[in-house]
């Protein structure tokens, strides 16, 4: 069953034979001027994995510095640069590009399209994003500026005013930060427009909106959310540059400007941004969990509605980052309640995933292991989120390591875990080779143990009062052992990522042949050869239900009879 060539597409492979060795020009042709959504998707993912290693190394430097009290591994100035670059890189150069990379690769394949709606815009978007990353890291060299001070940006990833004003941020580091985010922001905007146009206008015959795979639905919701999320950031960055270069007063308190309005603008972007990152991985989980439970997804329409609901509610919760700013009690109450409201649609999703697993023939392959870990970790992240949404609790723990632990539980425990799941799940489709299951299990368990050592412990350091962004601490605070455990956990995660990187390189050369459909899955991408040819489908597919490959594999009992 699994390796059989299926009749939709693929059966008629008319790709001409390639010569074994490509010339340099051919290689450039294939990877630099390409407009193929699959190659661009791969470029996005490779680019993000590179920056994942860079930002991971930055995190390890932070953890070495905090391992023992009064450490002098890095200087305070370097420490500020490290956490700024770690945060900015992880959000803008790892999280978003890798998820849009998956979207790029998978959305056209899943809806039976030849390519994205605007292939050239797609290439343009990728190279803009790539240039943004280059610009950000060039600040290490070019950030010294006219005054010979500063190197990389050191204002925190949220860059609160007045830290970003000229007197406090001399040199060009902050300008590189702002420009990099504007440039990569336009790239993201281009991709978002492209994904919306693709999902709405490029679906194959029979692929109605309510038959689209949930991953496609989630990418559509995320792209729509991106349109109204990234643009406020772009606007705020333009204002920052007007302040810094033209002498404007947007965030200049001495001329009547307001530092708080920057905080508002930043979190109007910043909070929905969390959902921009987490919603695609919900899509990943919604693809992987049914396949490895051998059951169709439970409550498909509810999942779609919940996704749109999360996106909508997420637009009205930003000021829960600002309880300590000193808003009115009406403002506080509104944002407490709206934040708690997020729990309802996310709760629906968790129950639907559990109900999908319930009674299924669960296969604990590596992608499924990452997804199951995600379910539990995301639940805990949600629970600490509800704790922090209560304003008095937040007053106590604002800017403490409890907050750091909470959002890393989302960003690592949910997002990174699912990104790994996605890579294990779709790597066979992209490369034609299976990733090693043994190494994958090593990767999973090491990462899982390291993750919990680091981020479970971090909650307690936070409850004991350790603030974020501090460079070092005194030995008598009672944080010493806990910080040591956090740092050891970080190194275990680092080793796990190295195992993963080795697995990728090893399996790429020596992995088992995957065949078209190694997981016996149901969405259209598995009907193409692995890797898919440039034209995706030799004949335009036509679908009649949510699980087109199920219909083909089980003509006696197709899904469309029940829809």
């Amino acid at each position, binding site marked *: 069953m699994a390796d059989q060539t*299926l009749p939709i597409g693929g059966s008629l492979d008319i790709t001409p034979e390639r010569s074994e060795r490509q010339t340099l020009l051919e290689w450039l042709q294939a990877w630099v001027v390409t407009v193929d959504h699959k190659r661009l998707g791969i470029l996005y993912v490779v680019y993000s994995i590179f920056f994942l290693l860079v930002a991971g190394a930055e995190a390890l430097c932070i953890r070495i510095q905090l391992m023992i009290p009064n450490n002098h591994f890095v200087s305070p100035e370097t420490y500020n640069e490290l956490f700024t670059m770690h945060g900015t890189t992880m959000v803008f150069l790892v999280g978003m590009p890798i998820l849009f990379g998956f979207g790029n690769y998978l959305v056209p394949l899943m809806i039976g399209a030849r390519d994205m709606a605007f292939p050239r815009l797609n290439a343009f978007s990728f190279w803009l994003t790539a240039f943004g990353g280059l610009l950000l890291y060039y600040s290490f060299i070019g950030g010294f500026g006219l005054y010979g001070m500063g190197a990389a940006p050191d204002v925190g990833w949220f860059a609160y005013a007045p830290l970003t004003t000229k007197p406090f941020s001399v040199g060009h580091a902050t300008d590189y930060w702002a420009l990099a985010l504007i440039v990569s922001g336009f790239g993201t905007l281009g991709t978002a*427009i492209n994904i919306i146009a693709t999902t709405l206008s490029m679906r194959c015959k029979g692929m109605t909106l309510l038959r689209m795979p949930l991953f496609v639905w989630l990418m559509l919701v995320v792209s729509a959310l991106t*349109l109204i999320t990234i*643009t406020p950031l772009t606007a705020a960055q333009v204002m920052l540059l*007007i302040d810094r270069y033209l002498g404007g*007063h947007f965030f200049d308190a001495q001329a009547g*400007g307001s530092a708080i309005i920057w905080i508002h603008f930043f979190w109007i972007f910043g909070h929905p941004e969390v959902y921009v990152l987490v919603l695609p991985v919900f899509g990943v989980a919604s693809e992987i969990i049914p396949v490895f439970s051998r059951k169709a997804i439970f409550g498909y329409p509810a999942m779609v509605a919940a996704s749109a609901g999360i996106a909508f509610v997420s637009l009205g919760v930003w000021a829960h980052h600002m309880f300590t700013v000193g808003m009115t009690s009406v403002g506080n109450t509104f944002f407490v309640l709206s934040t708690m409201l997020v729990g309802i649609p996310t709760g629906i999703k968790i129950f639907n995933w559990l109900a999908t697993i319930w009674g299924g023939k669960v296969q604990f392959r590596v992608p499924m292991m990452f997804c199951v870990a995600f379910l539990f970790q995301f639940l805990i992240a949600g629970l600490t989120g509800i704790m922090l949404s209560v304003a008095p609790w937040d007053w106590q723990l604002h800017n403490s390591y409890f907050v750091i632990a909470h959002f890393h539980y989302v960003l690592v425990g949910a997002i990174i875990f699912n990104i790994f799941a996605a890579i294990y799940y779709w790597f066979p489709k992209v490369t034609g080779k299976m990733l090693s299951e043994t190494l994958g299990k090593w990767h999973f368990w090491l990462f899982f143990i390291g993750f919990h050592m680091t981020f479970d412990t971090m909650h307690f350091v936070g409850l004991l009062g350790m603030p974020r962004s501090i460079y070092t601490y005194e030995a008598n605070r009672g944080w010493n052992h806990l910080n040591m455990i956090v740092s050891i956990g970080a190194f275990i995660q680092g080793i796990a990522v190295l195992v993963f990187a080795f697995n990728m390189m090893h399996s790429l050369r020596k992995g088992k042949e995957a065949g078209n459909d190694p997981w016996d899955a149901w969405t259209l991408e598995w009907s193409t050869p692995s890797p898919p040819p440039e034209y995706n489908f030799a004949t335009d597919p036509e679908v*009649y239900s949510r699980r087109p490959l199920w219909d083909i594999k089980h003509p006696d009992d197709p899904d469309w009879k029940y829809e």
Partner: protein
Amino acid sequence: MSAIPVTPVTQEWTLPSRGRVGMLSLIIGECGIFTIFVVAYIYYIGKSLSGPTPQQVLDIPLFNTICLLSSSVTIWLAERQIERGKIKAFAALWALTMGLGIEFIIGTALEWHKLIYLDGLTVRTNLFGTTFYALVGLHATHVVIGLIGLGLILLFTLTGHVSEQHTERIQVFALYWHFVDAVWVVVFTVVYIVGR
């Protein structure tokens, strides 16, 4: 096993135009940018610590506004002409649209010249200067981008490269121009009526 299952009902299959969807998405994104600038403008009304104030220096640009808004009508008429394949009429109306847009930019340039050299209002002067030039400048930038687009299409039309089959592309571009005009209604209300 390999047979395609008996088809249920084959339905009509029409999808929205990707150009329109893409342009509408872009417009939604642009709305995000404009919203932030408009919010900043409204938030800082009356918060400048020194003069000049909007009451002292701003005149209502009525002629400019009429020109820009009527360009939305002329571009709509142009769209209808190309639908019917009347390229000459299309070119004339298109050129008229462009002329109205250029008039708007010239008007803005004269206004800014007066503000800078007569009234001494620059980005640096006070919060009003910062927010005014940012918001009106953002809109003017969009008009300039629109004019570049209009100019290119006019060039293609005059060299005979535009025909009836390009109707949809022209209409997609026109959406952008309509958006630029609609935003001016908001900017005009905020800057010249509410803020003054």
